[in-house]
């Protein structure tokens, strides 16, 4: 019997952390990625990574408070146990990255420097210049390369995941491998794996222009969903308040720009035509600082996005009458800015042409992150909540002295496993940690935590779980050939769709045109502000696009490096996932975190402190069920960030987040 292998799909922070952890345990790893892993989307993360640290601890901060902030930020939609364990691990993860050689910024005494970030009053964000994600990814890429050189990890770069290979039905369903395609030769084949880890990131491309990389279609998650994996909290899409509008994508302007002192404002006078630098201080409206005196410009992302949207769309006070506000750093020392934020300021200068050290930047919200993702489970740890600790106030000591207990049991087979046995979801594609909004600088943490912590579970499962008694290496080859054939015929159908016999620029059946319209529609109906009627209209539009997609025509019929085929196939999967997102938003009749319904402006805990679970029906429709959140550690409290009531009486208006 040959040794069981683990398949990891995706080579961003989550995939690489898992690969390193599992390979270190002596289990051979096959790592699949559509791009060389060093170019994964994690490189785009800028601001930093959160963890309790000694300075903050001595000011009254703790892992427990990081846990509490994450829940409060996420409006209590996350199961609490995984979040507790993640924040417990955070300081250890920083230490490990430090040992791997990440150039974290330093203080004069050579300690790791810290910065302030949204959703906290304590400095608990570690950073490496303004390209923290890139630096963390490179550190893990280097460790992966080391294991690759030792033969413990096998990389399959430029391979696209097409479908999971599963056996059994219902609760006995088990994932035993994947089918994938070489993006250069177009060869399709299946691979055996005792366990499969999906670490495929977000789905920003469903919204057309977003801050995501061009590979973040959500296609892989959609394919697992169509094969029976549940998709949870799809409607929870984070719109980052500060993105730079662009013709091809929206480029992120990191929250660290505000963390380091950036101020958001518009001219007090509507339609003021003066240059920003000519408008004196009293004639500027610092609307976030006025409304939220405690957190000011550092309110969580959904609140900031909504306020900017309100100022521009509802009040018409955007700069030059357009959908844009100023993000201003020009009052600060240019040298300090270069040192702390150099990388992101260069991006702005490069793509817009103005120097943010001297001219306020123009920004507007853009789709950024999916809190929702594949549904996963876990085994709760030893933590026993005590009634007297039910309410945790900022600055309170951690409960049970300093011992906070375990949120999850290390190494349990089912940690971050989907409803399909042997199929795991790590990183952004995992729904588990961020509830209804993610706090800035928690994403890098959740990705690496998933890989390191639940990687142990994967290794244990492969050694002692189902693959031990029933190894995938002994399964009938027909199980794998069936899926290879399914994908082969899907490809042939697409390629034979009428290349060349119609006008290639006719948008009706053009995959790029369908993808573009999908993005415009989803951005307009399902981002910053939602209403029931608009979401229903969106579902009708999805029906129309789906029908047009049935006759999709490719303008490239080549069997060599055919990117049009790959994109067109993904568009079909994006349409299916878009339905889960829109339908979840329609059925969640409340406002919570990034999900804001003007027709239901308040949070409704009795009915909706529940996980949205989407299940795929063979006819292409989606069944949605709401399942209560496991929340017995911290009591849910109103999420106000010291501002006035969250309900706003504004006319439901629909505008695109940034023109597409």
């Amino acid at each position: 019997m040959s040794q069981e292998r683990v398949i990891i799909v995706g080579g961003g922070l989550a995939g690489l952390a898992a690969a390193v952890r599992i390979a270190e345990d002596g289990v051979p790893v096959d790592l699949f990625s559509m791009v060389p892993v060093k170019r994964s989307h994690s490189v785009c993360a800028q601001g930093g990574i959160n963890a309790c640290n000694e300075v903050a601890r001595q000011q009254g901060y703790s892992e427990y408070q990081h846990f509490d902030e994450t829940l409060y930020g996420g409006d209590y939609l996350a199961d609490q146990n995984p979040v507790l364990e993640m924040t417990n691990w955070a300081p250890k993860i920083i230490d490990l990255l430090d040992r791997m050689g990440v150039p974290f910024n330093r203080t004069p005494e050579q300690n790791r420097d810290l910065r302030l970030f949204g959703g906290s009053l304590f400095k608990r964000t570690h950073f490496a210049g303004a390209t923290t994600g890139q630096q963390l990814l490179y550190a893990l890429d280097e460790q992966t390369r080391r294991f690759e050189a030792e033969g413990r990890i096998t990389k399959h770069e430029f391979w696209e995941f097409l479908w999971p290979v599963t056996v059994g039905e219902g609760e006995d369903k088990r994932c035993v491998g994947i089918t994938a395609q070489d993006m250069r030769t177009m060869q399709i084949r299946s691979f055996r794996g005792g366990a499969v880890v999906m670490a495929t990131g977000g789905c920003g491309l469903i919204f057309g222009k977003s801050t995501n990389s061009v590979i973040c279609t959500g296609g892989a998650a959609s394919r697992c969903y169509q094969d029976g994996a549940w998709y949870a909290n799809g409607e929870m899409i984070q719109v980052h308040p500060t993105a730079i509008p662009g013709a091809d994508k929206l480029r992120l302007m990191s929250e660290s720009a505000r963390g380091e002192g950036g101020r958001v404002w518009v001219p007090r006078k509507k339609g003021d035509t003066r240059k920003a630098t000519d408008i004196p201080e009293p004639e500027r409206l610092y609307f976030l600082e006025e409304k939220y005196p405690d957190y000011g410009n550092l309110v969580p992302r959904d609140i900031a996005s909504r306020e900017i949207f309100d100022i521009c769309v509802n009040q018409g006070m955007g700069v030059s009458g357009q959908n844009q506000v100023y993000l201003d750093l020009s009052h600060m020392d240019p040298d300090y800015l270069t040192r702390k934020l150099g990388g992101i300021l260069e991006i702005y200068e490069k793509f817009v042409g103005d120097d943010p050290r001297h001219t306020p930047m123009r920004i507007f919200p853009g789709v950024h992150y999916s809190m929702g993702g594949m549904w996963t489970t876990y085994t709760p740890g030893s933590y026993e909540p005590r009634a007297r600790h039910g309410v945790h106030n900022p600055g309170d000591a951690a409960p049970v002295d300093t011992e906070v207990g375990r949120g999850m049991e290390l190494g349990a087979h089912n940690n971050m496993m989907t409803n399909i046995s042997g199929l795991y979801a790590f990183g952004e594609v995992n729904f588990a940690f961020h509830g209804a909004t993610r706090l800035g600088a928690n994403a890098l943490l959740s990705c690496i935590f998933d890989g390191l912590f639940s990687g142990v579970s994967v290794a244990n499962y492969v050694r002692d779980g189902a693959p031990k008694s029933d190894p995938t290496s002994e399964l009938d080859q027909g199980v794998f050939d069936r899926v290879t054939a399914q994908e082969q015929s899907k490809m042939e159908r697409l390629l034979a769709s009428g290349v060349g016999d119609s006008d290639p620029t006719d948008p009706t059946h053009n995959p790029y045109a369908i993808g573009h319209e999908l993005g415009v529609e989803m951005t307009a109906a399902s981002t910053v502000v939602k209403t029931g009627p608009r979401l229903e209209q969106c579902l009708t539009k999805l029906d129309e696009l789906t029908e047009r997609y049935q006759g999709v025509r490719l303008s490239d019929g080549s069997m060599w490096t055919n990117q049009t085929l790959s994109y067109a196939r993904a568009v079909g999967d994006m349409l299916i996932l878009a339905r889960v997102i829109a339908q979840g938003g329609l059925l969640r009749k409340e406002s919570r975190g990034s999900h804001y319904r003007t027709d239901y402006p308040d949070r409704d805990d009795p009915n909706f402190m529940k996980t949205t679970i989407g299940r795929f029906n063979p006819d292409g429709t989606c069944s949605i069920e709401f399942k209560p959140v496991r929340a017995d550690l911290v009591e849910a409290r109103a999420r106000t960030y010291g501002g006035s009531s969250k309900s706003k009486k504004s006319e439901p208006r629909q505008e695109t987040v940034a023109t597409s």
Partner: protein
Amino acid sequence: MAIAYAHESTADQRRANRTRAVEGRTVLCRVRRCDGPGKAGRWESFKVPVEPGMNVIACLKHIAQNPVTVDGNTTTPVVYDAGCLEEVCGACTMLINGMARQSCSCLIDEYAPLEGDTITLEPMTKFPVIRDLWVDRARLFQSLTRVKAWVPIDGTYALGAGPKESPEVQQDRYDMSECMSCGCCLEACPQFTIEPDEASWDTSFIGAHAISQARLFNGHATGKELKNDRLDELMNPGGVSECGNAQNCVKVCPKGVPLTESIATIGRQVTIRSFTRFFSGK
């Protein structure tokens, strides 16, 4: 000042072009196409309407949706490599008007500011073409393995913090660590030549980026445990001594990585290492 089109155009000239860009214009996108390895190349031109702030990627997206050449012939969408579109992943590197750079950060206003101007896109020449503008850069990553570009940690268990370091050392390392493996320095280097045969990669000139990565890890308190291995590799054929000192690499690096400084530093480290090895025998 005349509009500067040549590949020698400076950043200042490109900025000046931007201020004179004509709104609502159409430009000609001239693309070097190739259907696959061993196939003959050909040129195709496309008319592309330009919006303000548009970059080369937006042009290629327009062509994908409207794959019709300027002569009215229906063709296929152009194949190219792309990722973040923020100039941090390195994927979308190509030759634009003859010079290697990322296409995402290449604004049309800077390269083709007037009605009817032409912008030329070609694949990099130092790597084998897969199709159209997409090249195979596997050798670039293989060279990182050659110089053991990693810190040899004991494992992923909780073993406390890493070594302390001063802000100055951190800043130096960060500057080198921003290298995104794009390949611009290799494209510009006279000593780095295309090497389709994988068997000869280990003995062909390794290039500035990998030499700089060796310096990055030699400068880390734990990373320097492998310093001798790295220097021994860079003493071999294809190592640092094959640098011809043209200094093109540092001029084209989009991230400002101090490549020539790294080559000089590694050159010195190699000299010392060769003496030590000669006298001590290890």
